[in-house]
């Protein structure tokens, strides 16, 4: 699936970029473009754009209207990341999987996989 706009224009990617800059300093996504490339590959792998992925990871709880993390979708994407990593055994697969995890983490998704 091709994204319908440059990956950097998605709100969730802007949020990732901001999180990385605030935490680590510098311009991590600009300094290491392979991170966004990895996310783009992951999007193609699952057939969804970054904002759609993030949208699924949160749901509105009926009882109080709070926006909460969806355990079901977190498990789903954790499994997808493992499959994605396994496509490229070795450090490169690990590195690409970690870039996707970083995207989720800086969007407020507590995830380790």
């Amino acid at each position: 699936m091709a994204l319908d706009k440059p990956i950097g224009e998605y709100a969730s990617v802007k949020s990732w970029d901001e999180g990385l800059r605030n935490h680590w300093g510098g311009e991590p996504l600009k300094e290491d473009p392979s991170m966004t490339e990895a996310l783009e590959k992951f999007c193609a792998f699952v057939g969804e754009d970054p904002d759609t992925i993030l949208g699924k990871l949160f749901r509105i709880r009926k009882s109080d209207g709070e926006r909460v993390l969806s355990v079901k979708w977190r498990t789903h994407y954790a499994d997808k990341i493992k499959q994605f990593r396994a496509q490229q055994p070795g450090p490169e697969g690990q590195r690409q999987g970690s870039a996707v995890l970083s995207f989720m983490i800086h969007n407020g998704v507590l995830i380790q996989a």
Partner: protein
Amino acid sequence: MEFQQVLGIRRSIRYFDPDRQVEPEKLQKILEACRIASCAVNAHWLKAVVVRRADIAPDDLEKMKNPVQANVIALAPVHIYLYGDPGVVNKYKGARLKQLFDYGALNPTHGWSHKFVDETVYPQILKPLTETPVYPVALAFDCGIAACQGLLMAFELGLGACLTAFVQDVVKKYTKVPDEWIPFYSINVGYPLESREAGGQRPRPPFEEQYFLNRYGNAFPRDPKVVKELEESKLFTTPARPDNGERRKEVRDLARRLNLPM
């Protein structure tokens, strides 16, 4: 290492050298430290099963991961799974208390006798306690004390350690513990890749909010001279600080080395 230094250097270590094995004698010392811990009624509820990560099938290790401990259990070469055995009180029926009497730890000076244990302590206090909902709380407290001693021993031996929850059903495939044992935590052990300071001593709530003299609300007076002494004895070490560039760099380097997300 001096006792106060050990207390001062303990941190939850989350970055381990995944390939450096922990020597069996060091693991034994950790368990020995657990074994001599203070324990109510000399019951010794804590049980531990040591499992090397290398002996866990990769598929099972994946199933043991949860969103907060996955990296720790994947990096730590050894997992020490901690359980409480609620059956010990009714198994020994006060025998371990009477042992303390025979060895001079409990004495008539404080009201103790075999008769008291046989006629009162076990049948009227301990056995009924095992049937109440607070029993697991009581035994968990004691297991925590023992686990803490093991944790401190790990640091004294130059290791790092981090307590985490564990996924009981998958772990049980390895530990094969009795069904009635209560699962608590895993002490994940290994050689740290982090520096000894690991970013410094973690922030803690103010002393005065936690500890009181005579009654709640009357803060226990904190003497700055004592604080100074504890700094000198290294119970207090370099405090962690927010936005610490050196720590960020250390973590960033570790993330790159271990292929962890940034």
